[in-house]
Each structure stands twice: as C-alpha cells, then as structure tokens.
C-alpha cells in the first residue's frame, strides 16, 4: 500500500511540476524576422499614389550634410545608445526591425479588438452612441465593429502607402547615406539597407500611422504616442537612422496623413449610424416590397449596425458602379420554396454540428472583442508577408490594396444588407439557436463572406503560390457562418461572389500602380 501511495505521489508531483513550468507561451508575432528586402524598391517614389497628386505634393526639406557638426552630434547620440545597450533595448530593436507597416498594422488590430464591444443599453431601453468628441466617456469611442474596423485598416494602410511613396521619392532626391555608412564605428543591429536613409521610411510610416490612429482611436492617444516614441528609439539604437532621418520622415508622414484625415472626415462614415426616421423607413421599404423585414433579436432591440455604411465613399468604384455592377441580385423571397430549403439547412446545422465544423465556426467567428474579419485577413497577410522579404514600400502597397478592398467589400456588403433587409435564420425559425454570436444587422449578404472573398482575391494576386490556400480559407470563413447558424447559403455564396468582384477592382489597380 505504501508503494501505491509513493508512486501516486510521485506521479502527482511530476504532473504538478510539469504544469508549473510549461506555461510559457511563444506568440507568433514576436518571432517575425527583420525586414531584409530581396528587392529594395528604390523606385517606389515613382509608384502611383492613392490620394497624393504627386510624390512631392508635400515638401521635405533638404537634410544637413553628413560632414556638419550637427550630424556628428546625431551620430554620437546613436553611439551613446549603443555603448550601454540593454537586453530590453535589443528586444525593442528586434521587434520594430520586423517592419513599420507590419507593427503599426498590429497596433491597429489591437485597438480594434479592444474597442470591438457594443455599448450597454440606457435605462429606457435605447442605446447610447459613442462620440468621437468625448471618446473616454461611456460608451467609449469607437465601437470598432467590422465596418468601422474595415474602414480604419483601409485609412491606415492607404496613408502608409502614400507616405512611403513620398518618403522614397525624397530618398532618391537627397540621397543621404545611412549613419553606418558615414561612420564605420556605428554598429548595425539590423540588416543593412542600401537605400538612402533620409527621410526614414520607418518614420514616414510611423508619422502617418500616428495621425490616422489618433483620428480613429482618439481615446488612446497616450498609448499611440508611447508606441511612436518606442519606435523612434528602436531605430536610433539600431544604427539605421540618425535623429534627423526620423524627424523628417515623421513630419512628412504626418503631412501626407492630413490628406487622408480630410478624406475620412468627408467620406460619410460619420453619418452611417443613421437616425430613427431612417431606421423606420428601411423597414417600411422592405415591408412595401411584400417581404419579411429584418428585426433585431437583441433585448432591448438594438438599431441595426451602421445602416448607412453602404453610402460611404469607396476607394475602388463610385456609387453608381457599386449599385449597377457590384450589388448582388435579390435573395430568395422569404415566402419561396428555395428560402424554406435554405432555412431548413441551417436548422440542421444548428441541431447537428460536427466538432470540426464547430471549430471552423469558432476559428472564423472574429466577433466581440476581436480584431474583426478584416483584422483576421490582415493577420493572415502579415504572417505571410513577413516571410517574403518585402521592402517597407511593398509592404505598404500590398497592405493598402488588401485593406481598401476590405473596406469597399464592407461598403458593398452593407449596401446589400440594408437594401434587401433580409431576416436572419433564427428570426424565421425560432428553433434555431446559434453556435456563435448573432450579429445585429440583416442577413443578406454575409459580411464574413464578402470580406473574405475580397481579401483572398487580393492576396492570391500578391502571393500567387498561395492562391489556392487563400481561396480555401475564404470558403471556410464563409461556411463558418452557416455552421454558426446565423446565415443562409445564399448569403454566403453571394457574399463570396461580391467579395471576388471587389477584390478584382483592387487587383486591376495593382496592375496599374507601377509596383509590379
């Protein structure tokens, strides 16, 4: 008996100690390699910008000479950092060395996830609307739901791209060498770039990102400033830039960003919440067509999410093109046999879901408190791009194509949702309970499907060797909404189709931007 006890105790102790020390988690984004481009893209200043009228629309003053006393002081600043470098500073250099576009995209994903929580109701059963003018008061601004997030990623990436074009343009114009070339005593903790270092491409991206992030997440300014300061410090410590490279880049990035901030203020997203009259009218229009309208299944009933987001100004097409060429045809009529068949299919999923189907539903759910489906596709892109040795400019260009397509996919999807105003499966069949959170907006077409169709199309263009994988992922993301019992098959199929269309507009743009 003593033996049994002894052995059991040993097993228990072994199990406990094993568990105690195996809690270390290695997160994927902490091991991205340093940016070390195969093609330097030194000509990126000639690529076609999205909003800038020319790469020199905003000026960047001529740099001081590398022989000047001021420049020598700046070299000494780097040396003083490098003389007593700490392990924390080395980690900082490694982290930011993976790329400015990548890291600022990640920062936005984090802020989206943080703010992707719907406001709690008022005592009278209405819901408060977050205010950009008072972002820290409850409900905090923004509610970073999928359309808001799609738009946020698009503005960030678009501004980063145009800022890179301007930055690379001035690099060619001024051709000032990097500090480690001027002074061989400067060590480089990152792969040596052959590009001129003035203005810093990291700093143009940072400057543009800071401005857009502050517009979109005004309550997080301190955090954003702190990350920007950290980024600059990492560049100095790394020996890749002197302070004037960074200051010039940051200023240029901010100037370019102002153009995007102005566009954002006028793109009609601010009015996308609508008002009670518009909400009632949308429902009445649907009833007038003889259809059963969508209703909120939340308690208390919450107004549908951003009913006028379909009216937001797109990047890839005008509103007439969207209505005539992008908007899908109508869904099966709610009284039709086809509709009944589709509803029955979702009921079956809600009753009987395999564990692999359930895993797919949860993998792609990207609901509350996550970076949303557009964020998921940003993560997929970032993970793949990190291994492809893109230049900073190419990162920016590829993320811009991806994210303007995602925003436009959101616009097209929301247009269809509120144009058709189709009810959800759980509304039409009360036996249906959902495996994932039920979104509070009309069913047709599926947002996940539209976003994923667009993203997969753009990524397949950028990384052709993985085209089939991206298409399979989009299909899974689309199906996940049927497994979750929140969408009909038509929503998913037409969503993907619409997404492909939007994606192809972005691919066409890619063919013409001079970066191929």
């Amino acid at each position, binding site marked *: 008996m003593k033996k049994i006890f002894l052995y059991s105790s040993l097993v228990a102790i072994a199990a406990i100690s094993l568990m105690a020390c195996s809690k270390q988690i290695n997160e994927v984004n902490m091991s991205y390699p340093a940016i070390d481009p195969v093609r330097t893209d030194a000509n990126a200043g000639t690529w076609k910008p999205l909003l800038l009228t020319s790469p020199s629309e905003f000026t960047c003053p001529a740099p001081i000479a590398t022989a000047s006393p001021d420049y020598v002081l700046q070299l000494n600043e780097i040396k003083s950092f490098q003389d007593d470098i700490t392990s924390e500073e080395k980690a900082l250099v490694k982290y930011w060395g993976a790329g400015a576009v990548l890291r600022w995209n990640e920062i936005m994903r984090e802020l989206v996830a943080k703010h992707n929580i719907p406001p709690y109701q008022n005592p009278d059963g209405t819901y408060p609307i977050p205010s950009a003018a008072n972002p820290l008061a409850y409900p905090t601004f923004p509610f970073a739901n999928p359309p808001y997030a799609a738009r946020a990623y698009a503005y960030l990436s678009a501004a980063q791209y145009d800022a890179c074009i301007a930055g690379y343009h001035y690099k060619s114009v001024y051709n000032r060498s990097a500090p480690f070339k001027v002074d061989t005593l400067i060590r480089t903790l990152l792969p040596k770039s052959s590009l001129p270092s003035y203005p810093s491409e990291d700093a143009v991206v940072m400057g543009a990102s800071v401005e857009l992030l502050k517009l979109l997440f005004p309550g997080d300014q301190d955090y954003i400033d702190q990350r920007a300061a950290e980024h600059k410090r990492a560049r100095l410590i790394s020996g890749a830039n002197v302070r004037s490279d960074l200051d010039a880049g940051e200023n240029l990035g901010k100037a370019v960003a102002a153009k995007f901030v102005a566009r954002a203020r006028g793109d009609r997203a601010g009015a996308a919440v609508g008002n009670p009259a518009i909400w009632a009218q949308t429902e009445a229009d649907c009833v007038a067509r003889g259809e059963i309208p969508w209703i909120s299944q939340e308690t208390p009933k919450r107004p549908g999410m951003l009913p006028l987001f379909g009216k937001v100004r797109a990047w890839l097409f005008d509103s007439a093109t969207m209505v005539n060429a992008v908007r899908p045809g109508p869904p099966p009529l709610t009284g039709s046999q086809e509709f009944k068949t589709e509803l029955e299919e979702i009921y079956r999923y809600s009753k009987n879901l395999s564990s692999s189907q359930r895993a797919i539903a949860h993998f792609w759910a990207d609901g509350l408190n996550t970076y949303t489906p557009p964020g998921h596709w940003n*993560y997929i892109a970032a993970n793949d791009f990190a291994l492809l040795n893109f230049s900073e400019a190419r990162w920016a260009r590829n993320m811009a194509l991806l994210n303007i397509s995602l925003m436009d996919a959101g616009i097209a999807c929301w247009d269809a949702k509120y144009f058709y105003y189709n009810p959800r499966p759980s509304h039409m069949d009360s036996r249906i309970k959902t495996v994932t959170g039920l979104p509070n907006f009309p069913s047709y077409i599926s947002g996940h499907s539209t976003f994923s169709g667009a993203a997969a199309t753009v990524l397949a263009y950028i990384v052709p060797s993985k085209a089939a994988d991206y298409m399979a992922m989009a299909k899974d993301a689309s199906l996940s909404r049927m497994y979750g019992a929140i969408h009909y098959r038509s929503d998913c199929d037409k969503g993907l189709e619409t997404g492909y269309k939007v994606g192809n507009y972005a691919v066409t743009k890619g063919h013409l931007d001079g970066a191929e």
Partner: protein
Amino acid sequence: MIPLLLLLSAQQQVQAQTDIDGLFMEKNFFCIGPTIGQSSWKEYWEGTNKRENLNLGRVRTTTAMVMGNYGVTDKLNILFGVPYVKTKAGAGQLAGQKGFQDLSFFIKWIAAEKHIGKGHLKGILIGGVSTPLSDYTPDMLPTSIGLKSKTAMLRLMADYQAGNWFGTLSGTYNFRSNVELDRNTYYTTQMHYTNEVRMPDASYINLRAGYRSTTWILEAFADQWKTLGGYDITKNNMPFISNKMNATRVGVHIKYETDFINGLSFVADAGTTVAGRNVGKSTNYGGGIFYIMDFSKKKKTDKSSK
C-alpha cells in the same frame, strides 16, 4: 467536484465521501453512485459590477455525475468523478452546450491523527488531477460546459470530531494548465497571437461543520474560490476563461445512511453564492444515491447479503 470548475455558472456539488470532507472508506470498501444537480443564475458580476443580461436570461447548468471512492487502506482512499454537463441560456439566441466535462481523480491520505480533549483530530493530505473528457469548447462562456484546463491540486485538511459534532477546514492550491482555443488570436487586456491561453492558478478554502453520526450527516459549509491573477470582464463584454473568477458561497449538505439496505445512502445539497467577481450569482441544489460495496476477502461471502 467543486474546485475543478467554477464558471459563471459556479458548479454545484453533491457529496458523499468526497475530496472535500474528512470521511474515509474502510479498507477494500468501494462507494459509488450517481448524483444530479442544477445550478443557475440570472445576475452575475461583470468585474465587481453586479448586473443581468437580458440576452442570456437565467443560465442553467445541469450536471449528472458518477462518483466513486475506494478504500485502499483505512487511511488511504482514492476517488474519482465523471461529470456530464448541460448548459442552457433562458433568453437570447445562443445555443446551450452539453457533453462529458472533466474526469477527476484524487488520493486522500490521513497523514496524522491525534486525540485532543474529547475529540479526534485528523490531518489529511489530498492530491488531485483533472483532465477534459471530451473536446468541448471553453471559448463560449457562459454556455461552455468547462474551462478545458488540465488541473492538479494539493489540499491540506484538518478534521476534528468530538462526539457527534465536527468541523473541517481545508485549503487548496489549484494548478491550472494553459488552454488551447479553436481560434489563433484573442484579446485579454492586450492582443495575443497564439491559440494558447495562460490560465491563472487558483486557491480554495472550505470550512464545514455540523452533526455527524453513523446514520446522519447534517452540515453547513462556507467556501471561497480565488483566482490568483486574471482580469475583469470589461463592460458589456463576454466572459473569458482567464478572467479573475472569485466566489464566496454558503450551503448545506445532508447525508442519510439507510437502515433498510445496508450500504445505501442518500445525499442532498443546496448552496448559494453570496459574493463574487466575474462569476454568476448562482444558486444550486442536487441529490444523489450511493451504495457501498465490500471487496474485502474475509467478508466476501457476506457481500450478496448486503
């Protein structure tokens, strides 16, 4: 068994000889039986803020369980539990879940005994492990049936009985393994790019006292579960497995050993959560039937007569 699971639904417990009392099976006796219980809550603590959620209504958790306890010696028992759990939200659209939850296994040992005054004091050492029995998802709280963490626990217990009156105090440290989700990123107080969630460990204190004879056990208990780490649910967010879930509960437990069938006993429990953080303000009740079998060689012939 209590400390292994404490969701928003704060699992009920139904006890016979369990990992939480000072009772032991005699050598070669085996006690086994089914229990069933239900716990439910309508209000829950979102951080420290008590609220309702009209899109969940009353959340119910029903647990059916088989528990066993074998006397290796008079001073060393091994115990196990196999629970089947079903959850259901009374309002809203979210589907309930069901399935086998976590298998638990304990070793319980009287490390020291002493007569003090009119009574008898036992120092008991308990070690336990648990592991999920099915591939349920822990990522749909509050309707998930468990937290999916593999756990190990170490418990020190003092049990004092004088005449028919007793008191038992125990303190437990629960080690909890990381949990893997179906998704590859998640947000706590920051973004995480991994499917693995670091689970904070937890402590548990249990005090129980009452009347204990060969026929009846009538006792009241108070206990407190504390998550050592974790974070609060943000306003109007859904709960997450690594939240700081704390709960203080009180309850009663009754056991009746029948005289008409030797070895047959009935148990009943009820309890309620009086304070908490990131858990449901749950009330639970349940009952069970246990039967004691005698595997000792000397009495083998008697067994059928029991």
